[in-house]
């Protein structure tokens, strides 16, 4: 790299000149900003088996082999200007994931960003959420059920819950309910929703789900465990009050001695 007749010392003093350091600093800041500015989109639907988003973004080589492998042309690489440039995702309203049993997109991934040998039922591309109860036909008392029937895991990922219909007094609401332990986020429901804007949408899990604090214990679920673990003798001995009382009495005695003349 050093030109002819340039000693190692001269080379390094050349490299660490103020102008070069300023250039590297400015260039680095602009570069970092360009990368940060196109970080993960808020609403993203990654291919099946995608690792947690930070790991996915770090390892995905943006090669598009998953895109090529998908027989339904579900996946697309984000173009420049879209968030997550070059990374694959899909738009269920356009083309949902058809949950191929052999998961060709995962098999094609060279980088392990899509965890190898993911079974399609274990995929978590997102979570379907019935986000608009005001417009969902089922909540108006109509028999729609389209999302329920479109779901590849019908009855598992989406169940119908029957509720009494008070307006007529003799019908029932058929309410679609999503089970997070079965829903793969394939987006068939969002794709099939008959509304102009889907009332049910696949959302990233951190948008869709809350997280319970670890301090919560529900008595109706954990009562037997709590009563087994709980042993009053662990915390307080039955005669412990006596220790304290005698200490207090001693202290009071000392107080009296010093105050009486």
């Amino acid at each position, binding site marked *: *790299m050093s*030109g*002819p007749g340039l000693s190692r010392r001269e080379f390094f003093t050349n*490299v660490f000149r103020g102008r*070069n350091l300023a*250039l*590297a600093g400015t*260039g*680095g800041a602009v*570069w*970092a900003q*360009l*990368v*940060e500015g*196109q970080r993960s989109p808020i609403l993203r639907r990654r291919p099946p088996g995608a690792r947690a988003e*930070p*790991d996915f*973004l*770090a*390892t995905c*080589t*943006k*090669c*598009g*082999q998953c*895109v*090529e*492998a998908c027989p339904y042309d579900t996946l*697309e*690489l984000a*173009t*420049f*200007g*879209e968030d997550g*440039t*070059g990374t694959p995702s899909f738009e269920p309203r356009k083309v949902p994931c058809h949950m191929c049993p052999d998961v060709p997109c995962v098999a*094609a991934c*060279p*980088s*392990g960003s899509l965890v190898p040998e993911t079974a399609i039922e274990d995929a978590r591309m997102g979570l379907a959420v019935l986000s608009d109860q005001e417009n969902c036909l089922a909540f108006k008392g109509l028999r729609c059920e389209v999302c329920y029937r479109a779901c590849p895991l019908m009855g598992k990922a989406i169940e119908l819950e029957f509720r009494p219909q008070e307006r007529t007094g003799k019908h029932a609401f058929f309410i679609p309910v999503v089970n997070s332990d079965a829903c793969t986020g394939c987006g068939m429901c969002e794709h099939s929703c008959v509304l102009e804007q889907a009332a049910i949408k696949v959302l990233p899990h951190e948008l869709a789900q809350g997280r319970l604090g670890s301090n919560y214990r529900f008595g109706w679920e954990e009562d037997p465990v709590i009563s087994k673990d709980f042993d009053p003798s662990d915390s307080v001995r039955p005669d412990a009050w006596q220790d304290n009382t005698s200490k207090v009495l001693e202290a009071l005695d000392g107080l009296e001695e010093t105050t009486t003349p």
Partner: protein
Amino acid sequence: MSWILAHRYLVLRRLSQAGILLLFWLGAQMHMGWLTGNLSSSRVLRTLPLSDPYAALQVLATGHPITSTVLLGAVLVAVFYWMVGGRSFCSWVCPVNPVADLGRVIKRRFRPQGQLPLERQARYGFMLLGLVLSGILGVAAFEWISPIGMLHREVIFGAGLGLLVIPWILLLDVFVLRHGWCGSLCPLGAFYALIGQISLLRPAFAAERCDRCGDCVRVCPEPQVLHFDRLDVMGFVGAGECTNCARCIEVCTRDAFSFDVRPGYSGVETATTES
């Protein structure tokens, strides 16, 4: 016909660049499995993996492990370019090369003034910066802004704003920095230049034929590699920044240049073929 003969390597390079792009495009759009993926990672005939070694280094810099597939692919690519001359990638494969060459043509015609001075060595700084930023940001930093990746991906998988890199690079190269992207900025070119320092295939130089006319220096996109004092001593273009584009071979009226194996390796070469 004589034009084609005089530009035979240029024609071959354009065919190579277009052919590779076409094979990738056929893979992505027509599901023909000769070459699937893109320059970042791909498979030949859906089996043999290839990977960009600089991208693999950036992933490692983020602290994430790379798979054996990516490792094998990166080693294969690195070994391949060690054999054919590191920056052969730049002039025979990279889709930005025709853009940069167009920029050089425009620049030669209009000769705009007021160029930013930036050393050609700056690229090595940017190459290191790419690895450092990968470590800090937790993603392969160059892959997120690479005009090569954007242009290449969007030609293959569908066009978007990434095609804007064509006017950007033209404007940069013509008005701001001479041969700026490929010559001073590109970290991937810098990485391949390091491989090129020791690569096998190089333009050999027959000092006794040269009359110092300087045609080669004028046509070379990296003229600093044609340093006659060094060429006389070494007998070949040793610098890794040479892209093996062969313009010097074509342009020389006295046939002073020709492709050959780097002298230090010729002994090794015969030894391996004999064993």
